[in-house]
């Protein structure tokens, strides 16, 4: 699903954000991405959704090399990925419902099914009553949950979530995490960057840790590297 080989990312003014990062996440896998602030977690996720391309090395997502990807191919790839951004990135001039629906509309989904799907997802994140509010009328945690609903709405094959529980209380965090587990159980691969070590410790999922741009720990490597070394068929 995701394959980083010797990825280096250098930003114009601030220098190296990632240095020789190699790992892969298989189809249907669930992986935490941890590490201190500024380690490079968001940068890894941005490389996955082709918001950035690597300075050196290769990033492959669902088989396609992101570096030379034609501009027209990028939307097609993104439609199969659900993304929760660290800063939410909701469309300011659309209501919560419209924000969630938008992710379906761009894929050309049939219009009849959209409202039902949207309201189901908003209910699942606990925002059934806030559907017609604009982002600036929502609390921080509510905005975050709209972003989560948008990422899940079109049944992505890969979900990429950047600190999706940073503005949520414990109960809401458990609810959202249950959603991610459910969607993973249904076959979606999940890569989730988080600082919530409780969450990481309480679960047995794979943990990838970065620090200062380098991959410093990968629980899959620890238990024999099964996921990253054994299988060499493209994901």
């Amino acid at each position, binding site marked *: 699903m995701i394959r980083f080989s010797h990825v280096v990312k250098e930003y114009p003014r601030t220098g190296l954000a990632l240095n020789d990062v190699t790992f892969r996440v298989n189809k249907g896998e669930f992986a935490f991405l941890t590490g201190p602030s500024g380690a490079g977690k968001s940068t890894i996720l941005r490389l996955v959704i082709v*918001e950035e391309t690597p300075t050196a090395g290769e990033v492959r997502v669902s088989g396609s090399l992101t570096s030379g990807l034609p501009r*027209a191919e990028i*939307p097609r790839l993104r439609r199969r990925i659900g993304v929760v951004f660290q800063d939410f990135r909701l469309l*300011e*001039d659309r209501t919560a419902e419209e924000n969630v629906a938008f992710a379906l509309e761009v894929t050309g989904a049939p*219009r009849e099914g959209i409202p039902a799907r949207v309201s189901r997802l908003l209910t699942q994140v606990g925002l059934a009553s806030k559907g017609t509010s604009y982002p600036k009328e929502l609390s921080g945690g509510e905005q975050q949950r709209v972003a989560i609903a948008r990422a899940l709405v079109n049944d992505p094959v890969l979900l990429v979530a950047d600190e999706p529980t940073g503005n949520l209380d414990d109960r809401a965090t458990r609810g959202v995490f249950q959603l991610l587990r459910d969607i993973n159980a249904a076959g979606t691969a999940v890569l989730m960057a988080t600082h919530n070590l409780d969450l990481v410790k309480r679960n047995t999922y794979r943990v990838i840790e970065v620090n200062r741009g380098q991959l410093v720990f990968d629980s899959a490597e620890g238990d024999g590297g099964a996921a990253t070394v054994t299988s060499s068929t493209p994901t």
Partner: protein
Amino acid sequence: MRLTLREVMLGMRRSPLLSTLSVVTIAFSLFAFGLFGLLVLNVDRALRGVEEHVEIVAFLADGTLPESISAAMGDISAFPEVARVDQVSPEQALARARAELPEFQDVFDASFLPPSLEIRLKEGHRDPGTVKDVTQRIQTYPFVDDVRYGEDWVKKLYDIRNIAGAAGIALGLLFAAVAVIIIGTTIRMTVLARSREISIMRLVGATDGFVRLPFLIDGFLKGLVGGLLALLLTWGANWLISHNLIQTFFFDPGIAFLGVLGGGIIGLLGSALSVGRHLRRV
């Protein structure tokens, strides 16, 4: 398509200020264009009125027989360039002089003036070249003493017409360019104001076309509305001038329609250029 139209409506509803300003700017640009257009149109009409007076005068020798004159008039009428030939008696010449020069107010004896033929040319044959050509042909009649056609005057008339035309086209092009720049600017600002939204749309999988289309339609519609407003303003200005100062002519309905359509096309062009360039960078 329904989705796109909804996007357009959404955009207008959300930034009514920016939308209104775009339309007003387009309208004013086209209005300036329209005013200059009216100026050129009316100068041209006025010049055509003056041009109708281009004429060649052939003075006849004393004692020419009336039959020769009639024959010559027939001949000359048959020239393809000639519209009309009139005979002017000494009395008619004096009457005209008395009307034009105050010194002749008290003169009543016309015998000192020669009779003459006045030749008017058809429209499209009043340029200095043709006039000179016809003059030379008339000069071949033996009883024609002298032919005058006001070389200087004809030339000056054409100069004025050409200068007015050139100035009109130059100013018109200038204003069209200004209009395109201002419209492009307005739309660029709309795009800039929405650049965060656009980048989010792309990040959740919208294609360039999906993002661009609402802007194009929006630009076209605003251009049309701006064009209509400009037409109204121009018509109003024309009405005011016509009713208070001097009689002027307005554009044909066809030209007016083309002008409004031109507004739409300018809006579309401005959108296309500025959205296209911006999308590459988002």
